[in-house]
């Protein structure tokens, strides 16, 4: 048995994972979808047919995601960069991926050590160790957090595309 409300909700949520990141945008999209469904219903279509035609009218989900990507927040853009990096890792040889990982880690480590060394040779030497710990935290904590979000979104996308 076709349930219009469930279908509208599921369709909007499938867009939500790939593009929308705010509930109010989801509400706006739902209102639009209901308006189009109502129009097709007045033309004599069944709920299911009207819904199917309405989603066609909304456009290709992939194209919508590209359009919405232009409006995304910095956090979302970071997740996408992270995802692209992951795709690159998947498509490239394990050796190159490992080399890239090592390069990024070494570059960050050099940056942290260099900043600490500069501090040690300045009048703020007593803060050098604290700053080093802070920089490690700054490097590690947000990147782990954002990577976790990117992973979560990737898993969600895989689940909805199946």
């Amino acid at each position, binding site marked *: 048995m076709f349930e219009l409300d469930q279908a509208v909700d599921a369709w909007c949520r499938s867009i939500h994972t790939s593009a929308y990141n705010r509930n109010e945008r989801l509400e706006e999209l*739902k209102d639009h979808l*209901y308006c189009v469904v109502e129009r097709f219903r007045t033309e004599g279509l069944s709920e299911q047919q009207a819904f199917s035609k309405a989603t066609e009218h909304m*456009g290709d989900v992939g194209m919508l995601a590209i359009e919405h990507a232009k409006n995304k927040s910095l956090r979302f853009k970071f997740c996408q960069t992270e995802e692209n990096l992951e795709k690159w890792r998947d498509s490239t040889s394990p050796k190159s991926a490992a080399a890239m990982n090592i390069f990024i880690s070494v570059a960050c480590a050099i940056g942290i050590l260099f900043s600490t060394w500069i501090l040690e040779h300045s009048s703020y030497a007593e803060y050098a160790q604290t700053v080093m710990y802070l920089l490690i935290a700054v490097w590690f904590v947000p990147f782990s957090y954002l990577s976790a979000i990117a992973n979560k979104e990737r898993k969600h996308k895989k689940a909805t595309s199946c």
Partner: protein
Amino acid sequence: MTMSKDLIAASATPLILSILSHGDGYGYDIIQKVHTLSDGEMQWADGMLYPILHRLEKKELVESYWGTAESGRKRKYYRLRQSGLKELKAQQKNWHNLHTWLQQLEGGAVCSN
């Protein structure tokens, strides 16, 4: 005759701003107005309108507020801001110039050096 995607994309902003200059509107209503105005020639994918509206809102050319539709559903309305009206005037001037140049070329007014 169907219009090219590039032309549809380029004309979307002035059309939206122009429609909103006649009064507040919501997504579906804007799409219907464009459809009626162009006699069905302007084929917008409905979902494409919202990223454009959100960008216009981000640029502070339009502002939005929530209302309630007759059906009782929550509905987001858009209103043109002063900066939006200014932008509309500038875009109208550009399109008018382009139209004039094309007409001049059609009439054979091509400068030959």
